[in-house]
């Protein structure tokens, strides 16, 4: 993902924090071309309402619980951030395995992520840092193996890797395939812990 990743620590200060992190004055907000991801952290849990914002203008951002003092962010297209949910599920699995085996510290986590899972690698890495704050996996490294989409083309009778953005079209003969062989993965593989 291009651009800045911004982590908000306080609801009330979103606009100020944005300006600070992007090195802009409040009156320069409209010049910020694009914000890819905004993560709002509530006090009770280390995550909150999450969205991707594509443009900054004046106005009120839905989903923000309190109005920032200066200009605010208006989403032109808001999508909930899939990756924070995934990061929290990963953490949950890790914590339960760790509890079973008496593991108190996790240094690295290996995951496998399919092209169809809709997971953006950088967004997942960022979400991981936020999700694991103050947990046994705080500061751990997330190692993401990306699995390309592979379908079985019945006409070619072969495994094929469709070009991105073409759905399940066989790149060789142009026939759409309903058989996804790989690319749907969302798997935890292993974790590295102190010996």
């Amino acid at each position, binding site marked *: 993902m291009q651009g800045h990743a911004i982590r908000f620590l306080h609801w009330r200060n979103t606009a100020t924090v944005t300006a600070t992190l992007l090195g802009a004055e409040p009156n320069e907000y409209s010049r910020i071309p694009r914000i890819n991801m905004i993560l709002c952290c509530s006090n009770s849990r280390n*995550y*909150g*309402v*999450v969205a991707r914002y594509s443009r900054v203008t004046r106005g009120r951002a*839905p*989903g923000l619980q309190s109005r920032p003092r200066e200009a605010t962010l208006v989403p032109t297209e*808001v*999508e*909930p*951030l*899939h990756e*924070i*949910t*995934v990061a929290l*599920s*990963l953490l949950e*699995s*890790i914590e339960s*395995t760790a509890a079973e*085996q008496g*593991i108190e510290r996790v*240094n690295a986590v290996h995951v496998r992520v399919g092209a*169809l*899972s*809709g997971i953006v690698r950088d967004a997942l890495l960022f979400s991981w840092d936020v999700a694991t704050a103050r947990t046994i996996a705080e500061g751990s490294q997330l190692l993401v193996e990306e699995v390309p989409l592979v379908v079985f083309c019945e006409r070619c009778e072969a495994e094929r890797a469709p070009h991105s*953005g*073409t*759905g*399940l*079209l066989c790149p060789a003969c142009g026939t*759409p*395939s*309903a058989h*996804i062989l790989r690319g*749907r*993965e*969302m*798997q*935890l*593989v*292993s*974790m*590295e*812990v*102190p*010996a």
Partner: protein
Amino acid sequence: MKMRVVEIAGNLMIKNDALAARLRGRFAESGTFVVNMLSSPGSGKTTLLEQTLRRLSSTYRVGALVGDQATANDSQRLARSGAPVRQITTGAECRLDAEMIAKALEGWDATGLDALFIENVGNLICPAEYDLGEDLRVALLSVTEGEDKPLKYPLAFNSSRLAVITKSDIAEAVGYDRAAARRCIEQVNPGMAVLELSARTGDGMEAWMTLIAERIRSKAFTAAG
């Protein structure tokens, strides 16, 4: 520091899939037909559902679960249809999962229903991964959204059995390209059933209502048998 590797081979969906299977068993026993509706925000899920509940409720016992990140507006709109509606406020979560469905059903005898409609959170990424124990997953696509949406969100359309093109009454005004939309759907789910309708004018609603009513009856029949 010496390290060791702990294998945790596990699909992240294992827990959800197990819960969904349990829900599916419950609904099979009670003969409740369950629909999971997926779409982007603003593609007309609530309007379609409102009309659907209204039309079905004279013949069948129907209800709805509505997932929304923040507001209860949708469930209030749906409650006007007279059918029982429960709201699931998901907060940070961008989708409904089987656990949320199970919780929402606590203290509500949804098994007394002939059909349960689940309006998922408006989002085409995350909900596609989560089985809710449904019989029919429907992906909605409004004519205003751009015909290539299935290519952008292949899993949502690939994992659904039926595509419903909504807001067909304004198709012409927005320059909707029917052939292109069908082509894109075909590219991610060959042979997928497609219905086109306008819940506002009622155009195309007959086919949708017929399909739903048939499925409700066949589910009840299977349960009774």
